[in-house]
């Protein structure tokens, strides 16, 4: 289109009267600095913190919540929430454990478990998008239903034995790095690529920021809503499989209360429950920060309730700081 003869110097326009760029740190860099400081302090204050064993343990603990938090980042960016993750985790773990116990191959068991998780996500998506139930209520209901199903299926018993190779895989390390952590990092990289380089990433942000503007721009709201809940369903279920491997059993009460830890990681990482804001790297750091406070506190012998108070305050403060910077604009 041959628009515009009144071409002005675009370079001058772009810099022109806007030189007052404020010096401000992004959420991600603030988190990285705090985390680094915490690492330094803890390694000086305790002998154990920097030991291979402790760090591997910390990494394993964080990975399960961290994997789900990746999915939760997409959900929260799209202005939704998924409270059913803990129950889906249990379901995935149980499904894979039962199949392995009954002699199916490990790979097949994992795939089926993931598919089951995706179906749970799809159901969440349908309730939210098509039945117009708010995400909080929809997934609260699903959380209760799925947990009850798990207890019905297992008759409240744990599932064992699991194949030795599967248990060994979950406990293994490569060059001192636990497999669980490596899996988490692979998922983080994939999610980072989705959020930065794909249409899905752009659409999720647009929907979370302004669903009506997104709809009027021709974005398929239904398809994208399904996508985010299917992704988190798959990740929760897969996290359940890994939990079963780590514990060497399928536990019907696995993942109980995880939804709050997962949401906390995303929120501390800069995600906004109003939608449109949040980053994968922020969530990664948020999950690590919360876990490190817990781990370090334990090593220092801090009362666990004091640690919980600290983590609760951290959640509130990180959102408060975010609000402050917004109001200043």
């Amino acid at each position: 289109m041959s628009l515009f003869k009144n071409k002005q110097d675009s370079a001058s326009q772009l810099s022109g009267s806007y030189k007052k760029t404020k010096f401000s740190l992004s959420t991600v860099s603030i988190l990285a600095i705090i985390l680094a400081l915490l690492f330094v302090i803890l390694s000086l204050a305790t002998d154990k913190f920097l030991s291979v064993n402790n760090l591997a343990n910390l990494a394993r603990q964080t990975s399960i919540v961290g994997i789900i938090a990746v999915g939760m980042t997409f959900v929260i960016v799209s202005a939704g929430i998924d409270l059913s993750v803990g129950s889906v985790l249990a379901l995935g773990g149980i499904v894979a454990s039962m199949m392995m116990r009954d002699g199916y191959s490990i790979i097949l068991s994992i795939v089926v478990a993931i598919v089951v998780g995706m179906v749970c996500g799809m159901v969440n998506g349908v309730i939210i998008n098509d039945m117009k139930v708010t995400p909080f209520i929809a997934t609260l209901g699903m959380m209760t239903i799925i947990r009850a199903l798990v207890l019905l299926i297992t008759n409240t018993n744990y599932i064992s034995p699991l194949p030795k190779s599967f248990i060994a895989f979950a406990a293994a390390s490569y060059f001192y790095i636990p497999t669980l952590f490596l899996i988490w990092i692979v998922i983080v990289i994939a999610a980072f690529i989705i959020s930065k380089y794909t249409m899905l990433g752009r659409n999720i942000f647009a929907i979370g920021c302004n669903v009506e503007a997104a709809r009027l721009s021709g974005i398929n709201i239904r398809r994208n809503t399904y996508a985010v809940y299917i992704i988190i369903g798959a990740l929760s279920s897969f996290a359940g499989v890994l939990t079963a491997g780590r514990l060497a059993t399928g536990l019907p009460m696995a993942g109980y209360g995880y939804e709050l830890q997962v949401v906390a990681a995303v929120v501390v990482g800069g995600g906004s429950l109003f939608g449109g804001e949040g980053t994968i790297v922020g969530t990664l750091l948020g999950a690590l920060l919360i876990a490190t406070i817990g781990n370090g506190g334990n090593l220092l012998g801090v009362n666990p309730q004091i640690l919980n108070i600290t983590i609760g305050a951290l959640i509130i403060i990180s959102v408060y700081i975010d609000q402050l910077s917004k109001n200043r604009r």
Partner: protein
Amino acid sequence: MSVPDINCSGTDNWNVNTLKGDLMNENGKVLVQMLNIHKSFPGVKALKGVDLTIKKGEVHGLVGENGAGKSTLIKILMGVYSNFDSGEIYIEGKKVEIKSPIQASKFGLAAVYQDVHLANNLSVGENFFLGKIPRKKWGFVDWRKINRLTSEVLGGLDLNIDPKIPVKKLSTAEQAMILIAKIIHQESKLIIFDEPTALITKEETEQIFKLIKKLKEKDVGIIYISHRLEEIFEICDLVTVLKDGEEIKTISVSETDKDSVISMMVGKSIKSAYYLKERELGETVLEVKNLTKDNEFKNISLNLRKGEALGFYGLVGSGMASIAKSIFGGMNYNSGEIFINGSKVKIKSPIDGIKNRISFLPEDRKNQGLAIRLDVSTNINLASYKNISKAGFVNLSKEKKNALKYIDALSIKTPSIKQKVINLSGGNQQKVVFAKWLCGNSKIFIFDEPTVGVDVGAKFEIYKIIEEILKSGSSVIIASSYLPEIIGVTDRTMVFYEGECMGCLLKSEYNEEKFLNLASGIKSAN
């Protein structure tokens, strides 16, 4: 204009004043007087020395086109704009300064706007006493008193509404009447009605009029703003006509008629900031037949030619915005057919609209047009990611190229393509929405109030963009309630009133009077 008697006993209680009203001289009956009010906004003089005098028990109509200064005047009186340039306000002869809406209500001034705000889930009675709920001992709510008093007040106005039912179960008109009743109960001296009938039916309008007549008997002064002249002539005693921030005339309705009021609103000159150049029009690209949506619009038919700018003109409640949105697929219609380049198409969603190369710029930029917390680049590409992606992956260099191209082409002032749109000015935000659709390869552009909330300079630039779109062989529909825009930037205009097309004017027939007649529901515009 006579200056009111400053010594008049303005401190007296209003009820006492009404009792001795007959004994007072002419000045005593004057309730509110605004003298020589000037108010300017950056770049515009909104009011240039307006006078307005309201007497007790008088219904005073206030008319004028959009932008004539009606709402500015009212907002000054209600304390919303306390920083007007110059002028004086007297209430019952006493000079006052109204610095806030709260102060205005202390002076006994109240306003009913077209969008009524009540607490929907609470009962009628609770709404009635909101903020000062009567209590019994121990702080318990005195429900009996609430319901009794509410019934009494409503009954006194011949309104049969149960004070216990939640407000959300009432019709819009009933809600408006609850609000009016509440205002009456507060013993307001002056009530302003701002387009009270825009969103309600004819029968409901009659009910509101009944209430206004009751208020009149109680010596309350009333300012009545409406685009519907027949209402002005039915209910008002006097009418003041504003145009371009000036008071044209205040006249008794019995001494004038609709035609003369319209010609006063129009004035002599038709000024427009912009004129489209002549273009060759091509074949028909869009045809709409009998488009109907219940309670919104009915039997709308139109056709649009290649390179043509078709205007939609109408006032509040005309339904033109819904029609514009429906053609794009942003709103569902009940029946009717749409043809693109001669073949029938199904448009059920914006996705269908975009597939048929239609684009739609909504009136409400912040809530419908932009993801304002995202950056300029994402917003510009928002409707075109399908075109610049392969297997779901966005081509980043094409994304950046698009953003830079349209920032440059539309002179969007932004420090970078990564700037969040929320930090841009209104005009630049609107240009980002334009860029989004230019980027998307549309052939038919539907603009709903394309220059709302945009300053004069940016307005001109937007008209230029529209002209470029037309030159490139695309077609445009512009829905606007701003007449100079319609006159300057369209070739042909359909005028709507209450969801129906009242007529279509060609450019050669453009005349403000004709537009206003049709838009006010008067079909016989000679």
